């Protein structure tokens, strides 16, 4: 904000395309800056040594074999949801209803397990579960898509509402199915018979979601890049008018893509209930529908890159969870750190897409000759700017916490 447009000291120019290693350099710089700020915030608010906190971070994500598996499993679920949202985002359809689509998928799975468990053979049950979870998710994606296609209803807001409708629907059925009565929880479904529990792959209960996630990633990559559908999605995303002009049926594309998007979210719901938790709660998805938006966007909607971004987010979550338990902090500390890191990453994208040209350099034709020096200063600026952003939030916390600290003494 110090760089308002009215000041003629500099102007902002769009970069052609930044070489990939420079782009990743900027991102890495932003993450490092974010980690530094997080360290400062941690020390100031909790009085802990940041190095030991970072140690605990790694410990939390990779500390033991089991922890590594859980990290990978959580990553796969988040990755599937992110992949599910991606085709919609590429079409500039802001589906922030992942949460609801996963929930109804989970609900459909749980319904099959409870109502049909032990009544039909297990393979058939699992087939029915899969179909109904995909269908439920698809329907939840279809509703806003139809509104958008027919009447151009704002999809961000309609999908948001669908989330809460889904949550209440799950709450409703939780009460219907609650065991024991009045507990408001369903409990482990079919604990004695394991009916409808998804099979373990190679004797590991963690492997199934991971394999599904990898297959989904590869297929989504191929679908978006090499299929006709993928191409149509890209065209609609770039310009709906162009799509119409060349004779694409945009309504059909929107509806088809959202069906896919919803169905994949339903798949995540299936894995959550059938494969991992074997129960259903309103918070079973713990906000991953929203986190997935960030994962997908951070990866620039590239399925392969999404593996890394989902890893980053889950790493933070697991690490911060460990920090919280180790140092007796409350779990929400993870959210604060994730928030700070996200702000930095979001902010640094600007410096990848644009560059700031100072007044003195105005004489040069923009973008023609970019010296190494210039890129360096830009990088420094990137950090500086990102720091500014977080510093404010930090300043607030610092203030509050020093007060807290004083009080304790």
């Amino acid at each position: 904000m110090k760089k308002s447009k009215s000041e003629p000291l500099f102007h902002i120019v769009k970069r052609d395309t930044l070489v990939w290693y420079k782009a990743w350099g900027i991102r890495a710089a932003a993450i490092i800056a974010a980690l530094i700020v997080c360290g400062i915030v941690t020390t100031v608010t909790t009085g802990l040594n940041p190095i030991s906190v970072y140690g605990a971070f790694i410990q939390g994500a990779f500390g033991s074999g089991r922890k590594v598996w859980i990290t990978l499993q959580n990553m796969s679920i988040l990755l599937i949801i992110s992949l599910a949202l991606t085709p919609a985002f590429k079409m500039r359809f802001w589906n922030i209803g992942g949460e609801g689509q996963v929930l109804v998928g989970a609900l459909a799975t749980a319904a099959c397990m409870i109502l049909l468990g032990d009544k039909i053979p297990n393979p058939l049950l699992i087939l029915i579960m899969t179909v109904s979870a995909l269908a439920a998710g698809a329907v939840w994606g279809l509703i806003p898509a139809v509104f958008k296609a027919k009447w151009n209803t704002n999809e961000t807001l309609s999908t948001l509402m669908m989330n809460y409708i889904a949550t209440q629907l799950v709450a409703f059925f939780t009460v219907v199915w609650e065991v024991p009565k009045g507990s408001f929880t369903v409990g482990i479904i079919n604990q004695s018979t394991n009916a409808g529990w998804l099979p373990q792959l190679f004797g590991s209960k963690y492997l199934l979601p991971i394999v599904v996630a990898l297959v989904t990633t590869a297929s989504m990559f191929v679908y978006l890049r090499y299929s006709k559908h993928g191409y149509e999605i890209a065209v609609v995303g770039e310009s709906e008018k162009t799509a119409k002009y060349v004779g694409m049926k945009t309504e059909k594309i929107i509806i088809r893509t959202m069906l896919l998007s919803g169905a994949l979210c339903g798949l995540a719901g299936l894995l959550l209930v059938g494969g991992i938790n074997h129960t259903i709660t309103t918070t079973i998805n713990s906000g991953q529908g929203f986190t997935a938006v960030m994962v997908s966007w951070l990866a620039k909607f590239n399925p392969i890159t999404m593996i890394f971004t989902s890893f980053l987010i889950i790493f933070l979550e697991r690490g911060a969870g460990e920090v919280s338990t180790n140092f007796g902090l409350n779990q929400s500390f993870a959210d604060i750190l994730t928030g700070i890191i996200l702000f930095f990453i979001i902010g640094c994208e600007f410096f990848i897409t644009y560059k700031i040209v100072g007044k003195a350099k105005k004489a040069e034709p923009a973008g023609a000759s970019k010296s190494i020096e210039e890129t360096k200063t830009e990088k420094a600026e990137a950090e500086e700017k990102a720091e500014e952003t977080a510093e404010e939030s930090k300043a607030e916390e610092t203030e509050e916490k020093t007060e807290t600290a004083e009080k304790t003494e």
Partner: protein
Amino acid sequence: MIDIVAFIPRAIGQSVPLLLGCSGEILTEKSGNLNLGIPGVMYVGGISGVIGSFFYEQACVNKEMNPLLAILIPLLCSLVGSFIMGMIYCILTVSLRANQNVTGLAMTTFGVGIGNFFGGSLIKLSGADVPSIALSRTSGYFSKALPFAANLGWFGKIFLSYGFLCYLSFIIAIIAALVLYKTRAGLHLRAVGESPSTADAAGINVSKYKYVATCVGCMIAGLGGLYYVMDYASGVWSNDAFGDRGWLAIALVIFSIWNPLIGIFAAILFGGLYIVYLYIPTGMDYMEFKELYKMIPYVVTLFVLVLTSMRNKRENQPPASLGLSYFREER
């Protein structure tokens, strides 16, 4: 039967955080910023106020609190907290042109985290056995009803029994409507939201309007969090208690078709819908239907959203550039 005299004050009490969030978000959205961080902002607004008053209460454990300070300290803290959140959002989306949805969601994560973390730390500091902080003394000042409310029977109960923030919320909504539709600044603001490039060509400082509208909007929304803790919850902060009211406030913006005056009535209606499940007799055997009744506000919002887009009346549409960053160089 529903006891109307008891129901209406409760509905209005529920409606105040929604209305404040809604008025704030309307201002923000009119500038073309779709701030999905409002739930986070409201948490920060709430916890900042709580922190302020917590230390003030601690400072005068054994002496009388100054009523003015007891109100001003939390109020200012809350405003500062939510202002900072607004600035973060603006720096990222306006100056750095980041995607608004992503930034908003990150802000919600961050804000809710701040609320629950500092809430949790304060709970630990106060050494209470229950997982909440009670600031009943401060709350007493915030929820002080008008002095003659008690003497006027049902009239007093329905119209005069609220704390000052409640009346303030209505006044803010009215002022917001006046500013938006009756002043030149409001006209400029709407122009920025509809078509920033046109506004820019007309010599309006687009960035400035976006910054001011978003930050003021966040401060108003933050007051909603403050009201919830200090007045509605009688000064008791417990983690996650604020719930999804922030999202509901965003829904309310659509419901009130971007007009703060309609927002007042819509907020009261939503406040009623939010608690109506408590009043619908279901009997002990059908507790599950209470959960379905909680769905009503969202279904109604979705319905209104679709209806306004179906009717396609120009004045009822979202601001045309809502959710898009403005790049002057890309015209």
